[in-house]
């Protein structure tokens, strides 16, 4: 029962968003998409300990792949998600073969460089991608049944369903031998090698899986917005998502979700009220979390109790 509690809370939260914010469904949908993206970073960074500031490379690849697939092959969104996931996975696999041999600052730089290269490629391939103008694509009804409406009901329910699937998948993975081995990788690559685990292939696998999920998030964003822009590859997107993850707490799925929801709400309301001071607020918030709550907000109850959680 206790294990199911977070799921029940999450379900209730999603339903509450739908019922309490019927006029803000587009915003609620963006939270869901971002949540999936942050989960993908959590898998790569929080579980496997692979430091990245370039996860947007896979997000953008997924978004463009889904849009191009819809424009030239089949406009059904669920198929588009599969294509987006595949594109994210392929980009992560190919870049991961080089990147996963590096670590630390070098790795961070390489992830940034890969995203920058992809952005430039998409910019250059204007005939295909529309370049800086963006690529506008009309997607068909979800599973041929539900048309995307401008109020955003279909978009929200669709994103919630996809988000639930991704979360379910990651909850499975987190408890699997693979998930355990990722935590091992993060904790001590030397020890992993000493127990005979193939460290490099395992890191590539983790990066690829994270890439697939980022690809799904990107594809989903393309579908609900009906548009893809070069900004899907941007450093800002990677960095912002990372801040959300750290805010919530790394290495735990709920941390990723909590951080995303809080950050997005804070941004939506605080930034609307005072865009300038928002930057002050976010800067201060990040520093407070790093200094005072390195485990993220999810570690707050434990910290308040005075004891450390086990």
């Amino acid at each position, binding site marked *: 029962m206790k294990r199911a509690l977070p799921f029940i809370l999450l379900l209730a939260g999603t339903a509450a968003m739908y019922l309490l914010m019927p006029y803000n469904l587009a915003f609620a949908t963006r939270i869901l998409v971002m949540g999936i993206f942050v989960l993908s970073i959590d898998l790569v960074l929080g579980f496997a300990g692979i430091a990245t500031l370039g996860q947007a490379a896979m997000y953008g690849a997924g978004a463009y792949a889904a849009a191009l697939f819809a424009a030239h092959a089949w406009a059904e969104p669920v198929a588009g998600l599969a294509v987006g996931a595949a594109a994210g996975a392929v980009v992560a696999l190919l870049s991961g073969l080089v990147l996963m041999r590096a670590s630390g600052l070098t790795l961070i730089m390489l992830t940034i460089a890969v995203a920058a290269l992809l952005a430039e490629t998409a910019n250059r391939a204007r005939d295909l991608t529309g370049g800086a103008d963006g690529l506008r694509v009309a997607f068909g009804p979800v599973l041929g049944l539900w048309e995307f409406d401008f109020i955003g009901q279909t978009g929200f329910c669709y994103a919630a369903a996809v988000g639930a699937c991704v979360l379910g998948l990651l909850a499975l993975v987190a408890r699997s031998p693979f998930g355990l081995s990722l935590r091992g990788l993060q904790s001590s690559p030397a020890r992993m090698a000493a127990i005979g685990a193939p460290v490099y292939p395992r890191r590539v696998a983790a990066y690829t899986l994270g890439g697939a999920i980022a690809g799904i998030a990107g594809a989903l964003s393309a579908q609900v917005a009906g548009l893809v822009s070069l900004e899907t590859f941007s450093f800002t997107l990677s*960095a912002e998502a990372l801040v959300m993850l750290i805010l919530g707490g790394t290495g735990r799925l709920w941390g990723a979700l909590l951080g995303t929801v809080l950050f997005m709400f804070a941004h939506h309301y605080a930034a609307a009220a005072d865009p300038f001071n928002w930057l002050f607020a976010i800067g201060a918030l990040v520093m407070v979390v790093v*200094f005072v709550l390195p485990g993220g907000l999810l570690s707050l109850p434990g910290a308040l109790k005075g004891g450390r959680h086990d």
Partner: protein
Amino acid sequence: MTLLLNIALDGIAYGMILFLVAVGLSVTMGLMRVVNLAHGGFALMGGALAHWAGADLGLGFWPALACAILGTVALALPLERLVYRRIYGFGELQQVLATIGLTFIVIAAVNRWQGSALLPVPLPETLSRTVDLGFRTLPAHRIAVILCGLGVILGLWLLLDRTRFGIRLRAAVDNRAIASAHGIVTDRIYMATFGLGAALAALGGVLGAELLPVDAYYPLRYMVLFLMVVAVGGMGSVTGSFAAALGLGITETAARYLVPDMATFAFYGIVILVLALRPQGLMGRIA
């Protein structure tokens, strides 16, 4: 032949600007092992102070530059004490986040103070002239930057390799506990080094402004560029940053002459190639 000369000249001039804007980071990140994403923030402080001194106080270029460097150091030292001292022992990611947070605060502060428009520092007559080199002209400013870059690398080499301060700094970085045991006051050494990094950041921000114009969002716009130079050069090596800046500068300049639309690919391609083959950077020590 003229083309080759052009590439060499513009490449060195551009590379030297890259070196000047990144060398402060090479000091804080390379020597002190802090992934200091707020480096651009200190350069911005310098640029904004110089603009303020020039435009609002009516000072000339050189007094404005001095004002920028001193002002930035004056702001950096308390920050070292309050913020950086606490993050020296953190992991790379934590350092990245803490310094990104600091960068946001600096941007917001400058934005509030000076607005979001460009913050130019008008050059003095001596630097805004163009110098005739026979086959072409070159702005005097670029020549000054090249000389300044050479001066900085020489000065740092003397400081780090030839003085007691340098020896103590390297001892402090390599092993803080042992250095303390030998009576080296590591806190002061760290503070002085950090001040040096901030001063170099301000110098680079002001001198580099002709190519990398300063506005409130300067730190975010060029953060990746600074980091790339230092990462390619190798952590812990000022000489490495120098080589990387010149190498990247000449490569990108050559691409701009020969295949202008591929220049971005050339830049990132080289970065990926170098880091994939030598993860520790050109002259980095293996950790």
